[in-house]
């Protein structure tokens, strides 16, 4: 046999290069990913083990590792990730189980579940810290006004775990819901048929089948928790995590090299978790839960089971909603804790001092980043799913890698990588401190999400549809614009909005890179909250939630009117 497929590979390559649009797209993509994901991360690594004066050295690591502050932060981070991961997974499982397995009569329940899973999406990832302070803090509505507790202590591990759990468990709920739906009911019926109790069925059939999925959910939350910057910042008090310590190392101690070394540690942590999650657990999840359930599931109607669980879920949802609702009230009450009369003073204040600018800047930058990310992620998914070329694996891996990189790490990477230009040469130095670098950060941060949904949308399209366009004479750019993109329009729009939402609510990487030239809503919230001006922070947060919710409504409206699915639905109705 000839060298495996040598001529075929050569021809494939020639065909690829015969298609200039394709080649330039791949080139641009590679440059973008190398420059804005791999290069900054590599810089961190180089920075922490190499200095111009001494050459290769582990001094920085030794110094950082011997810092008591750093060690505490490290154990704190692990502790936090573990607790948040476990609580979120368990809560998510309970919600998913009730949703998929129980006969829930009231429509309100279903609605409640939807709201609870939507809230964390539409709000900046740290509003719950604000609510926590408002409700349970020293002058908290519940602790002080209702219960008369004057020395309530929520700052620290306890507070962060509660806030993070409430923020992240809906992700687990959605993930596990999808998996539970895929369990073939006949498996459980078989066990039940052989005489197992419901509890026995749950522990011997459902749970084992779900185990890789649970691990998956746990790790995803763990990574989120470890990477979270804003919540520990707001409500951590003296409880520092790696993310906040890195931030303080940059902004407080002005030790950028030390911060780089710490960032390497944090990155290694999330990266390992990410690799386990992606390459080990995700595969096993798919392997154990293949395909669709063969039949509708007989829902559990037994009151003794459903009642306690639904009550628990309802109470919980009510609590989550209460938390979110307290934010707009925090903005409307004159002085939280003292004077609960309604007033616009906080809104007036923020608009007098930079509010308009903050909204304009945040809005504009996110609005620019959104279409770029959406298009970029669709192109990446297109290449990954439909094309074969050598650097494909690199492109896919790098764009997914961004998911495992905490914002703080990326921020430090950009500082180290771009403050003095690339490799300290001054090349592209102009980028640093501009709005452009903020846009790039937005793009990079949202790329994995867009790419993931793009890939799953593209996998649904029959390969031959695009091939027939190609066959009839369209070049790859044409095929993408006239066939692929229209077919994944829905996914494209939701990618657009998701990116916009993620960008306008982002803080962790941005806070390190933003200069006084730009005022951003999220950094403003952080600033006011730090100063204890919760009214203003809540006012900002309220408007932000309204913007985000508005864009999601707009998206749904748009998809209903123009979406592909709508067109096809209509066609079926008429046909």
């Amino acid at each position, binding site marked *: *046999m*000839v060298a*495996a*497929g*040598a*001529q*075929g*590979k*050569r*021809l*494939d390559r*020639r*065909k690829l290069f*015969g*298609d200039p649009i394709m080649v330039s797209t791949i080139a641009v993509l590679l440059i973008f990913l190398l420059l804005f994901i791999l290069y900054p991360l590599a810089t961190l690594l180089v920075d922490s083990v190499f200095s111009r004066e001494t050459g290769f050295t582990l001094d920085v690591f030794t110094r950082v590792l011997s810092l008591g502050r750093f060690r505490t932060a490290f154990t704190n981070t692990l502790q936090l990730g573990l607790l948040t991961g476990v609580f979120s997974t368990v809560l998510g499982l309970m919600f998913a189980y009730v949703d998929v397995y129980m006969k829930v009569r009231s429509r309100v329940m279903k609605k409640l579940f939807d709201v609870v899973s939507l809230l964390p999406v539409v709000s900046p990832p740290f509003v719950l810290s604000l609510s926590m302070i408002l409700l349970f803090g020293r002058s908290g509505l519940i602790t002080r006004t209702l219960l008369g507790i004057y020395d309530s202590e929520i700052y620290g591990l306890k507070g962060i775990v509660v806030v993070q759990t409430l923020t992240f468990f809906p992700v687990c709920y959605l993930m596990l819901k999808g998996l539970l739906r895929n369990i073939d009911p006949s498996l459980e019926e078989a066990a039940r048929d052989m005489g197992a109790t419901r509890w026995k069925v749950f522990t011997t059939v459902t749970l084992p089948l779900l185990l890789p999925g649970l691990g998956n959910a746990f790790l995803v939350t763990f990574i989120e928790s470890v990477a979270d910057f804003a919540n520990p910042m707001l409500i951590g008090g003296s409880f520092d995590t790696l993310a906040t310590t890195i931030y303080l190392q940059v902004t407080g101690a002005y030790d950028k090299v030390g911060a780089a070394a710490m960032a390497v540690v944090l990155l290694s942590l999330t990266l390992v978790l990410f690799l386990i999650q992606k390459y080990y657990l995700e595969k096993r999840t798919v392997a154990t839960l293949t395909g669709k359930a063969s039949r509708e599931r007989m829902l559990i109607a037994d009151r003794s089971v459903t009642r306690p669980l639904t009550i628990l879920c309802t109470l919980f949802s009510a609590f989550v909603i209460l938390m979110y609702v307290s934010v707009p009230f925090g903005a409307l009450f004159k002085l939280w804790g003292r004077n609960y009369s309604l007033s616009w003073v906080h809104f007036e204040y923020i608009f007098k001092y930079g509010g308009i600018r903050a909204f304009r800047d945040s809005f504009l930058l996110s609005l620019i980043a959104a279409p770029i990310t959406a298009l970029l992620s669709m192109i990446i998914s297109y290449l990954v799913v439909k094309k074969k070329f050598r650097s494909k694996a690199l492109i896919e891996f790098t764009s997914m890698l961004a998911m495992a990189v905490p914002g703080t790490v990326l921020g430090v990477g950009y500082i180290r990588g771009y403050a003095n230009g690339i490799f300290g040469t001054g090349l592209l130095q102009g980028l640093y401190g501009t709005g452009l670098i903020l846009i790039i950060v937005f793009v990079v941060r949202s790329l994995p999400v867009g790419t993931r949904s793009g890939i799953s949308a593209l996998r649904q399209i*029959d390969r*031959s*549809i695009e*091939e*027939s*366009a*190609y*066959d*009839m*004479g*369209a*070049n790859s750019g*044409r095929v993408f614009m*006239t*066939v692929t993109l*229209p*077919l994944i329009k829905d996914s494209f729009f939701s990618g657009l909005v998701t990116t916009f939402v993620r960008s306008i609510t982002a803080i962790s990487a941005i806070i390190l890179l933003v200069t006084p030239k730009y005022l951003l809503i999220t950094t403003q919230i952080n600033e006011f909250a730090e100063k204890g001006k919760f009214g203003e922070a809540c006012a900002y947060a309220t408007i932000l939630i309204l913007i985000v919710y508005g864009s999601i409504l707009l998206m749904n409206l748009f998809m209903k009117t123009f979406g*592909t699915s709508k*067109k*096809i639905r209509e*066609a*079926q109705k*008429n*046909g």
Partner: protein
Amino acid sequence: MAKISKGVRLEHISKIYRDPKTGRDFYAVRDTSLDIEPGTFVTLLGPSGCGKTTTLRMIAGFESPDEGEIFLGEEPINALTPNKRDTAMVFQSYALFPHYNVFDNVAYGLRLRKLPKAEIDERVRRILSLVEMEGMEARMTNQLSGGQQQRIALARALVVEPGVLLFDEPLSNLDAKLRVSMRTEIRRIQQTLGITAIYVTHDQSEAMSISDRIVIMNAGEIAQTGTPMQIYYHPDSAFVADFIGEANFLAAQVMGMENGLCRVSIDGREALVETARAMEVGQACQVVLRPEAILIGDKGLLPCKVELSCFMGSYQNYHVRAGDTLVKIADNCPINKKIYRVGDEAWIGFDKECAHLL
């Protein structure tokens, strides 16, 4: 159709794939050479996994051959991308664009060629009338039946006047009746336009009824090429004989050649049989007989015992045992003939033109 259709020539084409399970390389297509005349209808026929689709996709340009060269007309096209090749493919799944209506689907290729609007309208209209789909221009593709979708897919491929039309099992999603009428339709259109067509199927009656030439493939290689009649009555190998229709194999021995015919001995009884090759005296061989070529009666060449007798409508189906060999017989128009029952003794024979020696 204005354009002259083109011939296709494959010269020692191979395609190597890696088996994802074992990680080993294997030939999906191996050292295949084929010369297709312009304007002919050639069918690639073979069992599942024998490399038909792979061959077709190499001609279209979606896969690159690992060995050999493909010519379209006189032009080598190995390095051309699919959009630069003068081929048009009709897919098994039709692959109609779900976001376009019928007209836009058919006009897609013409618009790529930047033709004036009036010409596009005219050509789409003409091709739609050829496939008998006028008046459906505004329908979305999911408002069409399977057969109609197939016609639109065909129209979309035809309208660009390709040098070669490629079909990958275009009818396998249709029900049996529609399959028969659509294949006649495809053949009619192909002949009207005089276009070269390469057609992949694993339905042998489809292959028989529409092809000028059939290419039988087996495990990545060509087993035999020929007209349907040649393939059916003069298979080159037991594989081809068995794959195309049903075949009976009778073990025999060559006794000698007599003016182009071969005298063989079957179970000690001698008969004359046609043969394409020269055979050596004493050589062991097999006589290939189609079920309908065997005559069953009260006298004949070989005695046999009936093991199955079954009325099928247009013929009576027998399984009889002659010596150790099970022989299948299709006896046409049974109403005029004697019907043998299970357990009956009978004799079988054959005309020398209908037998074939391997």
